């Protein structure tokens, strides 16, 4: 199968959805500009016309309401924001309207909108370009919150999101946009609400989402060389969360390490630790653990972000501690060939 990037997979999903259904429209600041939102919307306006693919006023709140209103009359809008942080201006429309509409109007009408939000990290993104607020969205009944890791999942989940009858917040980590992967051509769907067991293992269950899954894979590769076998559950959807898959894995291993790209307090990882503790207490061999961002805004200077994020070495250290093993996790950082604040040498900023 051919290999394409996460960003190209997003572009294919949008193109496929618009080709299939003329009710699908796509708008957001910069969707038709020369950069095409990190390449994810390039070429769509040429293919589908400027009535279906268009730039918008810098008016995040109203334009979210516009999506809701259009969806009440059969349109399926996909809205895109280059950073999640910009979308915070639209919380009234998202929380008071999109999330509530179907429930508060007695189930008479749902709001089938998809909101793509890009999350940042590192390279000076700083306090207001790097927030990972998936737990906020997951806290609101009525929203589906999707967070793919692989290119394949990005395409399959975006198509499922667009054709879902409910509002979906679709979170793309900027550090994943260049990740390559095998992606089926044409229409293909990954169901919302189903986690993926990426690797099977025996000793510890690592539950992760989005970019943290990549760090977990690096950690697991290293751990495996040191005789530690982890099972990795990539959530793919953080709401509704696939508790069956999480519980089945923890039942098998008896140990849980929950990872999160957001700050620790009130995080999705915290919810996983809570529910596993409540539901599987007798299956647990030891207390569950969590690795998430510190409860601080992300600073800007590369000096200040050194060691600020959870990386593979931290995951490896945590797992080794859980198992009482002494391993030299410092090797992971030592082998890294690019600066700490970029996902790889492909990334030169600025955004």
């Amino acid at each position, binding site marked *: 199968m051919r290999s394409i990037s996460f960003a190209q997979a997003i572009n294919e999903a949008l193109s496929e959805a618009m080709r299939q259904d003329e009710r699908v429209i796509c708008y957001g600041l910069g969707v038709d500009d020369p950069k095409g939102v990190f390449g994810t919307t390039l070429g769509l306006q040429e293919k589908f016309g400027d009535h279906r693919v268009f730039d918008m006023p810098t008016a995040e709140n*109203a334009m979210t309401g516009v999506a809701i209103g259009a969806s009440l009359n059969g349109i399926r809008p996909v809205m895109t924001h280059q950073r999640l942080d910009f979308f915070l201006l639209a919380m009234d429309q998202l929380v008071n309207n999109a999330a509530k509409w179907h429930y508060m109007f*007695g189930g008479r009408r749902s709001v089938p909108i998809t909101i793509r939000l890009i999350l940042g990290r590192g390279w000076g993104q700083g306090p207001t370009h790097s927030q990972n607020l998936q737990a906020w969205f997951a806290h609101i009944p*009525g929203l589906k919150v999707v967070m793919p890791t692989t290119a394949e999942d990005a395409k399959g989940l975006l198509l499922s999101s667009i054709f879902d009858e409910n509002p979906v917040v679709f979170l793309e980590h900027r550090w994943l946009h260049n990740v390559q992967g095998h992606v089926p051509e044409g229409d293909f769907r990954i169901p919302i609400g189903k986690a993926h067991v990426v690797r099977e293992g025996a000793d510890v269950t690592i539950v992760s989402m989005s970019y943290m899954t990549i760090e977990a894979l690096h950690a697991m590769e290293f751990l495996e060389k040191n005789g530690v076998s982890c099972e990795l559950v990539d959530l793919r959807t953080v709401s509704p969360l696939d508790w069956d898959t999480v519980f089945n894995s923890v039942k098998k291993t008896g140990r849980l390490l929950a990872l999160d790209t957001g700050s620790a307090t009130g995080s999705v990882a915290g919810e996983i630790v809570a529910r596993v503790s409540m539901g599987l207490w007798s299956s647990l061999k030891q207390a569950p653990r969590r690795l998430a961002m510190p409860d601080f805004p992300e600073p800007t200077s590369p000096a200040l972000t050194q060691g600020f994020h959870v990386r593979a070495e931290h995951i490896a250290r945590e797992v080794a501690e859980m198992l009482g093993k002494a391993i030299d996790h410092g090797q992971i950082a030592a082998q890294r060939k690019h600066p700490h604040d970029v996902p790889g040498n492909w990334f030169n900023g600025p955004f």
Partner: protein
Amino acid sequence: MNQRNPSVIPAGLPSGGAPSSQAKALLFSMKRIRAVEETIASRYNEQKMRCPTHLSIGQEGIAAGVGLALNRDDFMMSTHRAHAHYLAKGGNLPAMIAEIYGKVTGCCRGKGGSMHLVDEEAGFMGSTAIVGNTIPVAVGLGLSIKLRNTNQVSCVFFGDGATEEGVFYESVSFAALKKLPVLFICENNFYSVYSPLRVRQPEGRKIHQLAGSLGLPASHGDGNDAVRVYDMARRAVDGIRRGAGPQFLEFTTYRWREHCGPNFDNDIGYRTEDEYLAWKKRDPIVMLQESLLGDGRATREELDGMAATAQAEVDGAFAFAGQSPFPDPSEAYTGVFK
């Protein structure tokens, strides 16, 4: 508290001379809305309507005028004070009263209450409880009309307070940019809860002029003159339907009773009894009745007949609501997603 009357009471007599069928339709619409809300007010203390309820008694002229100017398949959206709009658009009355009673036969099966009304069959697409919050949604309906090329109009009601919200500017601006078929109706009743305009907007501001500067035709009228409201709304709707883009109409009016609830509150000090009485003299229903009686377009018997018809319908709706079952408690845990 009041240094001067913050409300601006229109001078002069209402516009007369409308064809009697239209004038009578407007009058009946207003009388029906008034009968509904007076009945809510008189029965509110029974504690069976257990939700915040915002009455528009005194403001019926705008709802009736705009409602008559729209077609059934046009869209309308509204605010926390939505009863009049819903009814003027043809919303189902028993379903509205049942909703306020929290019954399963309510328009939202008891999940919405007075502040969340919907009747899509009548084109009433929803009202919500957050100031300014339905303005962009109505603009989105306008976008959908343009995309689907269906020649409908999307109309949204909001108050003077909503024009202080950022989303108002964002929404009007986008509608003007894309020339969307949207009719913006600002009901300026001079107060946001207890806060008069003078503590909220700079002296001398005209809301319609401000709106006009955003790039769409905007004008102003006396909201207690239902015939005038109807004429202005009809002209605006005609233009919008011809593809001329959105329009903005500001109507001044006055809420007789308290912001939320059935009582009068002129005694608590945020506005004066004199101001209220001056507006009450300009009751939109009485003004139109007098106009119709004055030139012989209607008889007293006809008007009495209208009142009786309206009250009978209202009584029937309350009986329906009272007799309807509550939703099963298990329904609270259903319907988050479709």
